[in-house]
């Protein structure tokens, strides 16, 4: 076999925490903004935000994704945990802002059966109001 063209040898530290999570209220919808990567490192932040809005009495929750170039299977598992809690607490969940690829991933996994998928926040808030 021919020698590889490029050899990359890594041994340093890697930035792990690349997600910013915040919460806000719009009409009757509690919005959890997720900006950045949704991976195993996101678990505590996402669960804390969910518990915060739930403690405030939220019945309609929107996970509003932005700049999510990277959502992996660990991130999907975190979101499945949120779906479990949403079902347990009789809340309604929707997601917005996902790229076409991650909308496809959500549908492949089956999450679309448990959370309506909207293109953007405005569409989602209008959808909750119907």
């Amino acid at each position: 076999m021919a020698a590889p063209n490029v050899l990359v040898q890594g041994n340093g530290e890697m930035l792990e925490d690349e997600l910013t999570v915040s919460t806000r209220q719009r009409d009757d919808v509690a919005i959890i903004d997720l900006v950045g990567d949704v991976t195993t490192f996101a678990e505590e932040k996402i669960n804390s935000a969910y518990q915060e809005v739930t403690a405030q009495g939220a019945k309609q929750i929107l996970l509003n994704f932005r700049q999510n170039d990277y959502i992996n299977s660990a991130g999907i598992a975190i979101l499945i945990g949120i779906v479990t809690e949403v079902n347990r607490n009789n809340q309604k969940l929707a997601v917005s802002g996902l790229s076409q690829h991650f909308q496809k991933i959500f549908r492949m996994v089956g999450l679309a059966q448990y959370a309506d998928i909207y293109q953007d926040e405005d569409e989602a808030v209008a959808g909750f109001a119907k």
Partner: protein
Amino acid sequence: MLNKKSDNDQNKKEIELRLPSKLGYEKVAMDTASSLARRMGFDGDRVESLKTAVSEAVTNAIEHGNQHDAAMKVVVLLTVHDDELVISVTDQGRQALQADRTQDVPNLPEILHQASLNPGADKGGWGIWFIRELMDEVEFTTAPSGGNQVRMVIHLEQP
């Protein structure tokens, strides 16, 4: 057995990454594969599928094969052919991948049911399934070195 391109393919180009077994480095492999695929002419949807498959394969190697031991390497070999991109991801095999795990098809309703009974229940197991669903060819083997190896192929559709 997958139909493998000859090692004598004169036009092939190889790029090798040797990554520490630390989560986060899978993004290096993902970005490299993405860059190569775009240069080859894959469309955006296929590139996104490739990125997910590569990240899952490397993450599996880090978490399971090498058990998060940063001193152990994950080797990613990307081979560019005229009409396809072949990516092999090899770990050092501290933990062997069980053959039956490679055929798992996760069932979300069942996962949700189990989680409703026990919030700590495993909600994962999607990674290998993503790889199988998103790539054109996938093969799980044991490398000559003894590590786990996954070989993925994505074909370039001719216009």
